């Protein structure tokens, strides 16, 4: 299955293959992600989802095929450069900065957007105040967007309850105004109510035009939020389609529940 590079797609993953020490971690993986779309990536443990995330975010550099973001080939670009091109991610086990306040966390997310030199910072020039003012305002917007608008900005990030930390991590990514947002198991550790409100938030994120790549084990979230779903097993795409199609796809059911004995 060969998909031509489609520059009009926001994120185009074409024929990506990765081998780790003789083990084929990914093979022939192709899909596109459009503006405002939510694409779920699912599959049993060890299916290659993390490897795929690492390829797209630039942590795995040795792969075949191509990944393009907004028409720009990502091959050979450092993770930090890819962030600059408009790709942000969250982590499976929340990774917040333990010695930053809630506000500073979201300001740190704007590292690439804030234009102040060391001199501006050291001597608090007018440009410093102007830049910080804009950054704080944007941070407030992002915090409000993820439902943390009422939290005291000076509270420590780590003092938030778990669900709040997940939201803060999303705010830190959103405030970089990404084109593509990759969410790595955002519902892990959440109860049903929390994951439902998380689903609503992901929809609102996509509504702003951001393409969302969602890896998630909580099927309720996946099935209710995603526009399309890509299913991986043993590093290959075994199904691709809408939640309805995926739910009844026999290959998917087999991947999750295993073969009947003797089959």
């Amino acid at each position, binding site marked *: 299955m060969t998909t031509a590079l489609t520059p009009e797609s926001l994120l185009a993953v074409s024929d990506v293959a990765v081998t780790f020490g003789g083990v084929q971690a990914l093979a022939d993986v192709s899909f596109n992600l459009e503006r405002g779309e939510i694409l779920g990536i699912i599959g049993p443990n060890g299916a290659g989802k993390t490897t795929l995330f690492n390829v797209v975010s630039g942590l795995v550099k040795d792969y075949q095929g191509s990944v393009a973001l907004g028409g720009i080939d990502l091959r050979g670009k450092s993770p930090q450069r890819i962030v600059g091109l408009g790709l942000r991610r969250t982590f499976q086990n929340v990774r917040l900065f333990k010695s930053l306040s809630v506000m500073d966390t979201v300001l740190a997310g704007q590292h690439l957007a804030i234009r102040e030199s060391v001199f501006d910072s050291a001597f608090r020039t007018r440009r*410093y105040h102007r830049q910080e003012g804009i950054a704080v305002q*944007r941070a407030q917007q992002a915090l409000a967007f993820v*439902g943390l608008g009422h939290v005291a*900005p000076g509270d420590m990030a780590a003092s*938030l309850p778990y669900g709040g930390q997940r939201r803060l991590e999303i705010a830190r990514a959103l405030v970089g105004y990404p084109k593509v947002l990759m969410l790595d198991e955002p519902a892990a550790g959440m109860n049903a109510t929390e994951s439902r409100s998380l689903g609503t938030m992901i929809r609102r994120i996509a509504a702003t035009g951001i393409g969302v790549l969602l890896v998630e084990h909580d099927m309720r979230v996946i099935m209710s939020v995603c526009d399309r779903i890509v299913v991986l097993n043993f590093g290959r795409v075994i199904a691709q389609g809408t939640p309805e199609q995926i739910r009844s796809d026999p290959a998917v059911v087999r991947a999750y529940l295993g073969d009947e004995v003797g089959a």
Partner: protein
Amino acid sequence: MRALTLLRATRRPVPSANTKRALRVALVLGTLGFASAPYWLGGSYFPDIWIDMGLWAVIGVGLNVVIGFAGLLDLGYMAFYAIGGYVFANAALYHGFNLWETLPVGAVIALVSSAIIGFPTLRVRGDYLAIMTLGFGGIVYFAAQNLTALTGGVNGLYGWKTPSLLGHPFITPLDFYPFVLALLVLAALVTMHLRTSRIGRAWTCIKDDEIAAAASGIAIVRYKLYAYMLGSVWAGLAGALFAAKEALISPESFTFDASFFAVAIVVLGGMGSISGVIVGGIFYVVIAEWLSAYTGTLSGVIFAALLLLVVLLRPQGLIPYRPTFDRRRLRRYGLPEPPVAADDYRLDP
């Protein structure tokens, strides 16, 4: 949205405004009183000690950028103190430079040399970094002992013309004291400003979690290098002042022990805490001075034991840094204070 009310974090009880104001006034008066002590105590002993405290406090403030802000263990920090000192001594001795003309040169050379040593160093793993800076400190120490043409060897350099400013010569320690104080205030202010800015946040991110920092677009190695440079420059300036005030510079001020004490000052005072490391520097001089009346080596035992106790029992140091975000900044930037409702805003650059 009901679940969100659970997200509201609890806060510590706030002391009343009056208590806070009284405390702040007391603190300011106390600090002023302490800082001006050499003037009303008189003599030359006290100004000497106070200059020592000031210089060690500057060392603490500078090294705090490296260790406290960016989380890099630097065991060769005093090398930059040496570099500043020898740059001044050479400029004064052979080129007739005055202290004030040399200070910027010393600062620039400390910056450049820290960039040169930092560039290969900061790519290695965290624990190797400590060793590498230790090796660098060692090389500078041996260079100071043996590059006789530049450093005067073990005897050091001395005998330059007394520095003067606007025709006023600097002879007594009290002449130098205001400049040490000014350097300390500048160092404290600048690093405090850096801490709450783009670069300071980047350092904190790197210290806390390099992977998450990179995911926010922070160039790890470059910002580590900045921390190393912007920390080392203060040692360079302090070293130049130290040489000028002593009218002598020799290798014995830059042994590994001195770098160890610098680390101890930062960890004891409180990593990241500017007031903490200043108090740490003062505390160090008090202990060292007080004990030197009995035995010079006992201060090593006491400081090592204290350092160990602090790491084990109070890792945040004596005066911990409590990061927060000052609400007054919101007012300053004309922004509403929380709660901010989600519907008021669109996410749009």
